[in-house]
C-alpha cells in the first residue's frame, strides 16, 4: 500500500538524518549522563542520599533529555519547507506524523533505557529496582514521544519554541513521572507495582490513539 510505503519513507528518512548526525544521536544520551552525574557532584558522594534521590534523578533527567530532543522533530522540517511538502503529500497526515513519532522514539527514547540502567548501577540502586525501571521506561518514553510530537507541532515555527515547548510539555509529563517513580519506589520496598504499570499502559494507549491526530491537526493549524 502506498500509505505504508510513505510512512516507511518518512521513518527511514528521519532515521537516516539522525544517523547522519551521529553526534546528534549520541548527544541526548551523553547529556543525560552528564546531567545525572551533576547531582552527585552537588549532593556529595553520600551513598544513602544518592540512593534515595536516585530514581527521581534518573527519571527527571530522562524526562529532560526527552524534552530537549523534541525541538528537532519538526523544527528543521519547518525551516527548510519540507514540512509543507509533507502536508501536501498524498497520504493521510496522521500516518506520516505517526512515522515521525516512531522515528523520534527510536532515536531518542530507546537509547535512554540502557543509559538509565547504567545510571541505576552508578547510583547503586538495589537490583530489585532495575526491572521496574526498565518496564516503566519502556512504557513511559513512547508517551513522551507521542505527547511531545503533538506539542512540537503546536509550537513549530514560533520563536524560542524550544523553551516554550519545554514549558508546555513538562506538566503533561508529570503523571508519567509520578507513577514511574512510585513504581520504582514500591519495588525497592518490596511492594507490587502492577497498579502503576496498568496506569502507565493506559496512558500509553490513550496517547497512541489521540496524539497523532492532535499532532496532525496542530500542524494544519500552524501552517494554515
Amino acid at each position, binding site marked *: 500500500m502506498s500509505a505504508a510505503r510513505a510512512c516507511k519513507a518518512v521513518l527511514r528518512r528521519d532515521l537516516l538524518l539522525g544517523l547522519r548526525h551521529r553526534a546528534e544521536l549520541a548527544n541526548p544520551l551523553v547529556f543525560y549522563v552528564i546531567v545525572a552525574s551533576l547531582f552527585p557532584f552537588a549532593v556529595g*558522594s553520600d551513598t544513602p542520599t544518592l540512593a534515595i534521590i536516585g530514581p527521581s534523578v534518573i527519571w527527571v533527567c530522562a524526562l529532560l533529555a526527552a524534552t530537549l530532543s523534541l525541538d528537532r522533530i519538526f523544527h528543521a522540517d519547518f525551516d527548510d519547507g519540507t514540512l509543507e511538502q509533507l502536508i501536501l503529500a498524498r497520504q493521510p497526515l496522521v500516518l506520516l506524523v505517526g512515522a515521525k513519532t516512531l522515528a523520534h522514539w527510536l532515536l531518542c527514547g530507546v537509547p535512554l533505557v540502557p543509559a538509565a540502567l547504567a545510571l541505576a548501577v552508578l547510583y547503586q540502586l538495589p537490583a530489585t529496582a532495575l526491572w521496574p525501571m526498565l518496564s516503566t521506561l519502556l512504557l513511559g518514553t513512547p508517551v513522551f514521544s507521542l505527547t511531545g510530537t503533538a506539542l512540537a507541532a503546536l509550537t513549530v515555527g514560533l520563536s524560542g519554541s524550544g523553551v516554550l515547548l519545554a514549558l508546555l510539555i513538562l506538566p503533561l509529563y508529570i503523571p508519567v513521572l509520578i507513577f514511574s517513580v512510585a513504581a520504582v519506589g514500591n519495588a525497592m520496598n518490596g511492594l507490587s507495582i502492577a497498579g502503576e504499570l496498568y496506569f502507565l499502559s493506559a496512558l500509553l494507549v490513550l496517547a497512541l490513539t489521540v496524539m497523532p491526530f492532535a499532532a496532525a491537526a496542530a500542524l494544519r493549524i500552524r501552517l494554515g
Partner: protein
Amino acid sequence: MLERLYKYAAPHQFFALSRALTPWFGGAAAALLAVGLAGALWFAPPDYQQGESVRIIYVHVPAAWMSLFVYVVLAAAGITGLVWNVKVADALARASAPLGASFTLLALATGSLWGKPMWGTWWVWDARLTSELILLFLYLGYIALQGAIEDTRMAARAGAVLAAIGLVNIPIIHYSVEWWSTLHQGPTITRFDAPAIHASMLVPLLIMALGFKAFYAATALVRMRCELLESECNSAWVTELGSGGK
C-alpha cells in the same frame, strides 16, 4: 632550530619525517611495555596492604597521567594551529582526541576495577573520579564538535578554541585530591620532594609510563598521517604520493 621546526611544519616534510619516526616509537613502545609489564607482574612486590591487586597501578596511573597529558598536548597543538596556521598541529590535535579519550576510559575502567577490592565499590562520586569523568566528557565534546563540522580546517580551528577553554579543568582534576578530602590516593609519585613509593614499584611504573608515551607518539603519528592525507588531498604532494611517486 626554529628553521628546522618550521621546515617540518610543512605537511609533506612532516609526512616523510613521521614515516621515518613511527617504527622507532612503535618499537620503543613495544619494548618498554614488555619490560614494564614483566617488572610489574613478576618483579614488583605485592603491597603489604593491598596484595596483588596493587598491580593495577601499573596500568592505571600511566593511563591517568596520559589522559591529562594528551589533553594538554591537544590544547597546545590546537592553539598553535589556530595562531600560526600550522596544519601539522591541527592534525596532531585531531589525532590526539580519540587517543586521549581512550586513555581516559582506560583510567576510569582500571580505576573502578581497582576500586572494587579497595573501596568495596566500583564507583564513588569522589572529586577526582568525577573530574576524570568530566575529562572524558571534554574529549567526547571535542570529538562531537569535530564530527559536527564538515570542513576539516574549520573543525580544527573551532576545536582549538574549545580545547583552550577546557584547559581550566586540568588543574582542577590534578589538585582535586588536595582541595577536597577524598577517597582517592593523594599524590604519592608526583610530589616535589622524594616520592613516597619504593623503588621496586617506582621503576616499573616509570617504565610503563614511558611505554605509554611512546605508544601514544607512534599511534598519533600514524593517525596524523591519515588526517593529513585527507585534509591535503588536493595538494600536489598527495597527488604525487597517490600516483606512486616518492
